[in-house]
């Protein structure tokens, strides 16, 4: 029957496509990022940062591991910002491409299931951007390059309490997003532990454009600071509506503010506001300056935090490989876990028995329409 012939031809094609091959004398590293789906910018930056790290190492003659020089090959997989696809991509990288380690995914909702796969296969995985504690909790082979939400919530609370002298705080956050909700809750508990009071606790859902009812409640509570741990696309609207309602409180944010888009959308209303993030381009250490100029020369834009964190993840892996002295997953895992002196673009890092790095956060103030370094907070 003709219809069956067609089906068979298709099936044979698919099987043919699925076959691949591996090569020796090179180190294969997997990159599993969100190139399509709802946060393609994150995936793009992540890929740029990783590719830059690999090309730099290869241009310098490769990576020397245990007296032998290897070229590094990056296998990039798109996880569509979908958990099932992230799991498939991780499984493929580990079992098909035989990578020594996987970098990514970035969003926690993809990183958590992918981390489980890496753990099952005893393969090191470093998530550059995932801040949800579950990603690394109780796992031996999973690491991250970012600090976790808990730390950021604590930093903002301490900053509001100690540096700004705030007694009362209000929070407006997106309840449908795990990131926003997590930071908001940690901020509340830390702020109250430091003797402050959270006088308004308002929520909305992703995509809302009108916050006037929540902001009216906040105005009635008259807080000293207003904390908006929300994404850069929504924050300017919230700030503008708050100011129009006459809320004079100082407004604070988290690392999700760290996009140039925030300034374009927010304009003058954003002046003087603070937020915490991973790194500040203007206090750059030599390592960071070198990275920023190389990145700008190659891609024509300033690297954002995802690019910097992915670059750091790659460098962490390279350092672990050199320390391990052989291309072996278990050895690399042990070397990663015992890194004590890593100087990265996003600051110095060390691991103390868990997959979460001990590293500092920076506080940025928006001044003259630019992100300006204000202070560093070490844990």
């Amino acid at each position, binding site marked *: 029957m003709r*219809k069956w012939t067609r*089906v068979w031809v*298709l099936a044979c094609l*698919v099987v043919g*496509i*699925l076959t691949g091959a591996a090569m020796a004398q090179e180190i294969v590293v997997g990159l599993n990022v969100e*190139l*399509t789906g709802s946060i393609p910018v994150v995936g793009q930056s992540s890929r740029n940062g990783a590719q830059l790290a690999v090309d730099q190492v290869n241009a310098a003659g490769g990576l020397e591991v245990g007296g032998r020089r290897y070229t590094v090959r990056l296998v*990039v*997989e*798109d996880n*569509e910002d*979908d*958990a*099932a696809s992230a*799991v*498939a*991509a991780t*499984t*493929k990288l580990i*079992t*098909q491409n035989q990578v020594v380690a996987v970098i990514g995914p970035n969003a*926690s*909702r993809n990183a*958590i*299931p992918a981390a*489980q796969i890496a753990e*099952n296969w005893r393969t090191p995985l470093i998530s550059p951007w995932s801040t*949800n504690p*579950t990603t690394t909790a109780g796992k031996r082979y999973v690491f991250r390059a970012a600090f976790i939400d808990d730390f950021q919530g604590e930093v903002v609370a301490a900053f509001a309490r100690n540096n700004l002298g705030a007694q009362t705080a209000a929070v407006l956050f997106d*309840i*449908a*997003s*795990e990131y926003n*909700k*997590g930071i908001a809750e940690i901020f509340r508990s830390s702020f109250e532990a430091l003797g402050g009071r959270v006088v308004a606790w308002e929520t909305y*859902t992703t995509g809302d454009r009108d916050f006037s009812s929540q902001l009216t409640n906040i105005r009635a509570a008259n807080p000293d600071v207003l904390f908006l741990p929300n994404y850069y696309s929504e924050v300017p609207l919230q700030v503008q509506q708050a100011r129009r309602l006459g809320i004079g409180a100082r407004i604070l944010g988290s690392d999700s503010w760290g996009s140039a888009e925030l300034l374009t959308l927010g304009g003058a209303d954003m002046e003087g506001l603070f937020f915490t993030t991973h790194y500040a381009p203007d206090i750059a250490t030599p390592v960071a300056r070198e990275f920023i100029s190389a990145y700008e020369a190659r891609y024509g834009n300033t690297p954002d935090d995802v690019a910097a964190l992915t670059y750091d993840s790659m460098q962490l892996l390279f350092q672990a490989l050199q320390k391990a002295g052989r291309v072996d997953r278990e050895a690399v895992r042990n070397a990663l876990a015992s890194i004590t002196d890593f100087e990265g673009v996003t600051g110095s890092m060390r691991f103390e028995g868990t997959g979460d790095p001990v590293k500092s956060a920076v506080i940025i103030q928006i001044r003259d329409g630019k992100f300006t370094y204000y202070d560093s907070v070490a844990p």
Partner: protein
Amino acid sequence: MQVQTSWISRWAVPLLVVAGFAVAWAIPRYQLINPYYELILMYVGINIMLTVSLNLVNGYMGEFSVGHAGFMAVGAYVASVLTMRVIPWDMAGYLYPLALIGGGIGAGVVALLVAIPSFRTRGDYLALVTLALNMIVKSVIENIDAVGGPRGFLVMLRLTNLPWVYVWVIVTLWVIRNFIYSNAGRGVLAIREDEVAAELIGVRTREVKLRAFIISAFFAGVAGGLYAHLLQFIHPRNFDILKSTEILIMVYLGGIGSMMGSVLGASIFTVLLEALRFMGVWRMALAPLLLVVLMILRPTGIMGLKEWRGLIPLDERLRLWRLRARKGGSASAAGN
């Protein structure tokens, strides 16, 4: 005229099912294939369950339900809560099927709740109701802190394996096949052609619609449970409108009113998206393009309204054969 059924036509399908199980059991046991392919096979199985169950409502009954991922979400969360919180830890492996059935029942109950008020609606309006249901389910889960809310729910046990997926795919196909070729199933087909006429000739349309809707939701729920225990982490965003759309695509790619079509649609779509990974971002452009081309060349999908003989019950096959013999071979060999 008495038709002699050959040994092959009687036993081919049961033998195929048993052989398939043997293979599904042997693959993980003896590491026969790369674990990546094994994972893809499991995705294919779960997608087959989702596609076949949605085809019952959209293809056989001719309704337009677009919120199938909502039922999947209910099943995923109910089954996960059962294995993580209710069933004792060391028993979870044995009672896993019960947890999945629990997830299916949960989804069925939600379907019942939705079906009653939406009885009066059909076509575009049912689409709206199911779309809303999908969004409600996602929002409700996001607001239940006991299951992690927007942070997602961690499922510690990887209980889903290839034999389980295989068994559930067979159960799904078997139950839905038997339903379609039962009296109620004839009613389902009658409703698709003309609901008023169906009512007039004595089909209890409400009851039939309700049953079809609940069976469809049940298997979506079980598929959700399998999905949760495969990924070990579920998140409300996994079950959004995009997921529902993906299932719809697989249904219409395979062809409405055909179980084999759904099996093919789900398999081809799932495998193709994985196989085209080397194309990078472009595969996301190619897959929809493929669908557009297919819809132009074959508007009814790969097997629209046609059925593979093996999925038609034996007595039905004989009846069709006799019918054809009487008409001198002019009637189509398969179909309904």
